[in-house]
């Protein structure tokens, strides 16, 4: 339910962007859906990379308590 609401909100936002253009300072900002894609890809990449990092630096809770 929440997932569907989220998806519909996202769709609405993409439509809204087509109606109300953003004042673009950098050229890529005017590409339609740039911020949407950026948000999705960034978070995805952050989590995947974070997970990788976790394999190297995660330890038991009492690691320092010897």
């Amino acid at each position, binding site marked *: 339910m929440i997932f569907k609401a989220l998806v519909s909100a996202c769709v609405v936002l993409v439509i809204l962007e087509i109606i109300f253009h953003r*004042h673009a300072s950098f050229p890529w900002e005017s590409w339609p859906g740039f*911020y949407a894609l950026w948000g999705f890809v960034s*978070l*995805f990449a952050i*989590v995947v990379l974070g997970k990788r990092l976790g394999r190297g630096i*995660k*330890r038991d*809770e009492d690691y320092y308590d010897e």
Partner: protein
Amino acid sequence: MMNSLPPGIIILVGALALPLLPRALRAVGALALPIISLAHLIFLSDVVSLEVEFAGLSLIPVRVDRLSLIFGYIFHIAAILAALYALHVRNTVEHLTAMLYVGSAIGAVFAGDLVTLFVYWEITALSSVFLIFASRTERSYRAGIRYLIIQVGSGVLLLSGILMHYQDVGSLAFGQLIGAAGSLSEASLGVWLIFLAFGIKCAFPFLHNWLQDAYPQATVTGAVFLSAFTTKLAIYALARGFPGTDVLIGIGVVMTLFPIFFAVIENDLRKVLCYSLNNQLGFMVVGIGIGSQMALNGAVAHAFVHILYKGLLFMSMGAVLYRTGTIRASDLGGLYRSMPWTTAFCIVGAMSISAFPLFSGFVAKSLTMSAVVEGYYVWTFVGLLIASAGVMEHSGIKIPYFAFFGQDSGIRCKEAPLHMCLAMGATAILCITIGWVPGPLYALLPYPTAYEPYADLGHSITQLQLLLFAALAFAVLVRTGLYPPEKASITLDTDWLYRRLAPRWVQGILRTLRKISQGGTGASRQTGRYLMRWILHHYGAEGTLARAWPTGSMVLWVAILLGTSLILYYL
């Protein structure tokens, strides 16, 4: 008379008087102090500065200008909210040290000279460590000691820097320390040391880990106080001394980026907030590094709203810890049933920090971002945009999701106490009000601004896109099982260097030294033994040279000698 009192002094003196109150009234007394002090500050506003001569040095213990005033106001507001939140605490030492901490932080932002700044700087370090010790666990004690060593170390660097700087320029005034070119490579060693001292308190990359190490060990209420003052005092000091220092832009971008990866995997939710705090400081440091009026306004506005929403998030996680006894994401979940108000307040804090339009984070961050765009810093812009998605991940979603939603932990507890709910509610109202009506905040900023965050509707829409599509990515990751499960664990950071590697090295070096000395002792003992044996052989009681030769054998030898010579003679 009242007007000549330095700001913060009422709280400092009042804190020392708190133990004189009846036990039950001390928490109320601690709440009253910042309220009285704020009233005093509002009347003080037109006093520009106070100069005194001390030991031949001209000091300016009080300097009131727009930059110090806005920090003075927000420090008072934060102290009032945190003291309200701490109304249940019955530990006098905690109230006393919290107020000393608040008073000295306020004193520091009004310090007009470097010596006064140093004195307050050290009091903040010494008083705040008691908020960590007050947890009364072995871990908190050790973390507190580490915190103290690093904070006092920052003070020592500051003092050395101040002395060298005084030698160079002959003035102790605390104004802009960096040259007009904003280049640190042209600065003197004294200025470098001061920069480094500020950098430690500001949690620059590689100097940051005291924050994530110590704050999560503080008490429920202590962490709320800690989150507001130390690092923002450093932001103030950088904004005062180093505006436009170009290296700060790079430092700031790195600060916004690296903590987000740690925040993804960290299990202790208050520690996640510490990584998030580190990331937020990065945005402010970038603003100070750019150094334009708009960028400095952005950095200061960010510090102002950040103190509120970060305090709110620490309060909500503190309430969870207070009620459930744990703050591990792996043990929590589904608490919205038990703590609906805390959940709602936490969500307001989460939306504010993620910079949703109509929340306080948006109106501050937009200023910094506009300054980045104005200066056409392309890579900085890209970095901050990634960091924005990162904020959404750890503070916007992870904190509320794993504490209040997600998998039901089965924990059923009471809602947070009334005074905690009041403190959180008031903070949440401030976060929303600033988001809707940013005008009064903008009016307080150091430089006049005509910025209108909602003038471009497209800006708000694209910001919402960024955030909601990031949320969508989170939902997809969770649904597909790609999101890393929360497990009871800790993550290593640079503290590993001094908690594990350095002790190992020291142990290793000691072991080698011991071996060398043992080896040396063994070898010298062996040599000594040989030497002694040789000496004994020759000079000892039974030695060749010491043998007693009987007279008879001498006569015999003489006889042999004479006999031999006689025979030789006849031959």
